């Protein structure tokens, strides 16, 4: 139930922001659209804790801030290597353990790895992530587990 309420609220806000016209006709059409999308998502059995991870609401902003800092640092490093040339990169493929208990936090971990330039999660199977990294330094950084510890805080 909470997931349905949260999804319909999100959809309504999304419509209001994108439309910008608040006449009765358009508001009515918006309500109909929200109802239609809600109906379809229920039929597809998509409204659950994975599409609406409400239990993460309080913890995710702190994580986003930390991730933003990590993304900026990684960007600077990759740009430096782009201008230095190919002798400065050391492409590596390796397997990383994903110790997270829930699927959604595992996916957040893998997506964070991909979002950070310099590392891309190629495959996520069971509790291992296959990662391609641009440099040895990025490999060491991931293996040191700083990001993993930060992600695991979401699960407490």
């Amino acid at each position: 139930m909470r997931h349905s309420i949260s999804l319909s609220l999100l959809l309504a806000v999304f419509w209001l922001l994108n439309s910008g016209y608040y006449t009765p006709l358009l508001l009515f059409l918006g309500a109909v659209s929200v109802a239609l999308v809600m109906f379809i998502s229920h039929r597809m059995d998509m409204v659950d804790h994975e599409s609406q991870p409400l239990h993460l609401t309080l913890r995710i902003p702190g994580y986003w801030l930390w991730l933003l800092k990590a993304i900026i640092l990684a960007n600077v490093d990759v740009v430096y290597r782009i201008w230095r040339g190919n002798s400065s990169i050391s492409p590596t493929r390796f397997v990383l353990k994903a110790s997270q208990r829930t699927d959604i936090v595992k996916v957040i971990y893998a997506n964070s790895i991909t979002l950070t330039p310099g590392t891309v999660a190629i495959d996520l199977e069971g509790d291992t992530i296959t990662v391609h990294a641009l440099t040895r330094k990025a490999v060491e950084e991931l293996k040191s587990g700083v990001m993993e510890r930060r992600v695991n805080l979401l699960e407490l």
Partner: protein
Amino acid sequence: MEIMIDLLLNIGSGILLILGGFFCVSGGVGLLRFPDFYTRMHAAGVTDTLGAGLILVGLMLQSTHLIVLLKLILVLLFALLTGPAASHALAKAAMHGNLKPLLYRDKSTR
């Protein structure tokens, strides 16, 4: 006072737009320069995240209406949420299509 704030916003926005442009160009250079598909993906990541992010934040400082600001925030959010999904799909397709990555070997082990 209002002129001062306007001026500061314009300068800040200009700096962010130039920086964002620099990151986008760097991503493009990396895309051409790096040796194989997988390494080029990392260069594209620069354009996806900080390049797009800085340009969007720079535009946010220019927005005069609240609704424009909120829409720009939505654009940034969607770019950051869909970017990794697309990169991951590409990388996974490449790996399952048996495209071997060019890997680095230490000179000592060669």
